[in-house]
């Protein structure tokens, strides 16, 4: 019996690992560029690796480098990191509805690996999400981010410029690749994505909000508006049946 459970979690781990490979590829150029920028900002290889392994959040890490270069104080850097990364709260809350029950400390452990990318891959997966799947997924993404941050620091400047440029599309291509199959199946998904995109474009172009808050607010607005429309339609249809 326990052997069966062990076998099941090994399969789930492998599934997660396989789904993580696209993230591993996507992180390659972003992590390489981060390593390179960290070096130019004056961080040591140890500091660069420590940041990638302990913070593990691309956008915030990039931002901290440009703030460091501007001579910003440590407290402000930590505060803006918090603001940029608060969106993960929403992602974890959403994912928590789909994950299988487990001990809180196990969930708290894989929660460390929640990024825009691991969240997206896990969230569009069909069915429930097992603990083994989350660990497999996280492992590939985390290893890729850590290893390529170091590689970028050491040899980033010798990579051809055209390759670096064209690889900057990788993460966006991954997001599109995750979104489109669900869009084909459901009109609701199309509305959700398009509405959130429109809100985010408005927030970003008017510079009313920082990018972190802009993503949180456009996601919430879109998710709430679409849910309200769906609920209203259900009620209309329900009363129609009664009449």
């Amino acid at each position, binding site marked *: 019996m326990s052997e069966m459970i062990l076998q099941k979690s090994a399969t789930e781990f492998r599934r997660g690992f396989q789904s993580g490979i696209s993230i591993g590829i996507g992180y390659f150029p972003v992590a390489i560029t981060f390593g390179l920028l960290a070096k130019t900002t004056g961080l040591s290889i140890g500091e660069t690796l420590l940041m990638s392994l302990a913070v593990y959040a691309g956008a915030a890490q990039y931002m901290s480098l440009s703030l460091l270069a501007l001579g910003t104080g440590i407290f402000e850097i930590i505060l803006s990191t918090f603001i940029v990364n608060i969106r993960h709260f929403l992602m974890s809350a959403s994912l928590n*509805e789909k994950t299988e029950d487990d001990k809180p400390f196990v969930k708290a452990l894989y929660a460390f690996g929640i990024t825009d990318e691991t969240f997206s891959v896990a969230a569009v997966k069909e069915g429930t999400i097992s603990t083994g799947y989350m660990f497999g997924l996280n492992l590939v993404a985390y290893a890729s981010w850590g290893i390529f941050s170091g590689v970028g620091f050491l040899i980033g400047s010798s990579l051809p410029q055209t390759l670096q440029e*064209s690889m900057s599309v990788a993460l966006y291509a991954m997001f599109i690749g995750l979104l489109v199959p669900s869009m084909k199946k459901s009109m609701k998904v199309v509305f959700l994505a398009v509405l959130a995109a429109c809100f985010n474009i408005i927030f970003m172009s008017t510079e009313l909000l920082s990018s972190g808050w802009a993503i949180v607010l456009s996601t919430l607005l879109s998710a709430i508006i679409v849910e309200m429309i769906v609920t209203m339609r259900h009620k209309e249809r329900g009363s129609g049946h009664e009449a």
Partner: protein
Amino acid sequence: MKPEIVWMIAGMAVVTYIPRMLPFVLFKGKELPAFLQGILKNVPYATLGALIFPGIFFIQEDIWYGILGAAAAFIAAFLGANIIVVILGAIAVLSVYSYFF
């Protein structure tokens, strides 16, 4: 390693981990009201929309670079290509584009 950089990284690590971890520990899942659950189920698709736009327009100074990359990825994904093919396809199309322009 400079101590102030290490402190900065430690602070960044803590404030990044807390929002990731709290929902998993605070909520058991599936006990929230149906309307709220519905919103949380919508979140992934809305997030993806906001993560792609407007960011993809600004990956290079040339806005067409991002538009072309998005179009290539969209077409590949629409035709049912595997996600890794979608990523490598978009990279390949942009490599050709930057070779000629």
